[in-house]
């Protein structure tokens, strides 16, 4: 069975180590914050200028001056720091953030990613995505393995305008966990009940499968 959005987030959260600084993009990545394993603490970085992002506020806590990168009202944890956007992106671009998790339209076997622009549709902008993929120590791309019409999002070469080049090493989809290296997708784990054949069929770019591919552990 393909994973739900929450299950993808759950699998993402298993990558985090205690003491990691993590930037989570909008959508599935944001959900990962709900599934950080017990005994592990991560500190969330919000690129508008907040390190140590907390939960959403109660009505009484709502403050127009306290928002996250998605422009949502938010709180800060004890021990947070708040700073300007140049400092925030100095952290990101200087490689100080341990994990960036973000969505994508396409990823290819060379670690290129397209996530911000579909020609012909209105282009709203890249926000901080190009900075995040250029700067983070580790990037995890989360997305469905194929689009709604069944077209693979894991390509030999991205067709859409890129967000960054040679930067993606780790992909977690509703079907699989893959590593990108040496010009290929390497299958590391399958979603429970999903066959290697199905993954092979839905992966347009070169796929390397070595030995038995274990199922993901989600609990």
């Amino acid at each position: 069975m393909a994973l739900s959005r929450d299950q993808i987030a759950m699998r993402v959260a298993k990558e985090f180590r205690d003491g990691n600084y993590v930037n989570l993009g909008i959508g599935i990545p944001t959900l990962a914050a709900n599934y950080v394993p017990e005994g592990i603490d991560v500190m969330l970085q919000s690129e508008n200028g907040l390190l140590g992002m907390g939960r959403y506020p109660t009505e009484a806590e709502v403050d127009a001056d306290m928002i996250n990168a998605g422009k949502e009202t938010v709180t800060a944890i004890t021990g947070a720091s708040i700073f300007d956007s140049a400092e925030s992106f100095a952290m990101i671009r200087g490689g100080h953030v341990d994990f960036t998790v973000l969505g994508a339209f396409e990823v290819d076997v060379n670690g290129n990613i397209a996530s911000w622009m579909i020609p012909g549709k209105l282009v709203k902008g890249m926000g901080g995505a190009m900075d995040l993929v250029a700067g983070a120590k580790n990037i995890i791309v989360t997305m469905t393995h194929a689009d709604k019409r069944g077209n693979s999002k894991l390509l030999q070469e991205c067709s859409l305008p890129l967000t960054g080049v040679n930067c993606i090493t780790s992909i977690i989809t509703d079907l699989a966990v893959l590593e990108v290296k040496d010009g290929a997708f390497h299958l590391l784990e399958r979603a429970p009940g999903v066959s290697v054949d199905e993954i092979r069929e839905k992966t347009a770019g070169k796929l390397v499968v070595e030995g038995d591919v274990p199922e993901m552990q989600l609990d």
Partner: protein
Amino acid sequence: MSGFDKVVTSYDDAMDGLKDNMTIIAGGFGLCGIPEGLINQVKKMGTSGLTIVSNNCGVDGFGLGVLLEDKQIKKMVSSYVGENALFEKQLLNGELEVELTPQGTLAEKMRAGGAGIPAFFTATGYGTPVGEGKEVKEFNGRPYILEESITGDFAIVKAWKADRYGNCVYRHTAQNFNPMAATAGKITVVEVEEIVEPGELDPTQIHTPGIYVDRVIQGTFEKRIERKVLAKEER
């Protein structure tokens, strides 16, 4: 120290000297930490052909969005736009030009503009449409693109508190692009929630030293919230 008193008492004085076709750098992220009254003053003045450098362009009827109503903006330099219908319409009509700039590059361009650095190399945008036509240079085997800095004829900034000398502090995440914007204007105007006397702000805790600031005006703020999300138990 009257020569250092930056306080002006009218919005006309605050934006005096703004002319058609000038460049304005505006602080703020979304609707958070935006100089609401200064933006409204630009609307009132009717100045046109403006280039606005700001991470976003407000929403319909609020923030920088109001400058679209009379087509005052010629060009936006932003990382993320189109949160309002009027923007989209003018963009598709070709009445409005947009230079999309990665958020971190935009922040750094403003800082560099204020700091006398005309250009810097960054990995951000290499190999993407943002890097097209820009100089590429390798450092330690990795390619970087050359990005030029930004300065403006005016910078409009929203601070929490400022003293008469223009020393500013920002509140929470309303800080965002404001400190960099403040450094990059030929004329920097700061709209504040509270004007205090020199000495009331701790000298080591000032976000924007007064040397960057030309005018300070007491504002009143609606502080509209773009996306109010509550904790689960309150939903």
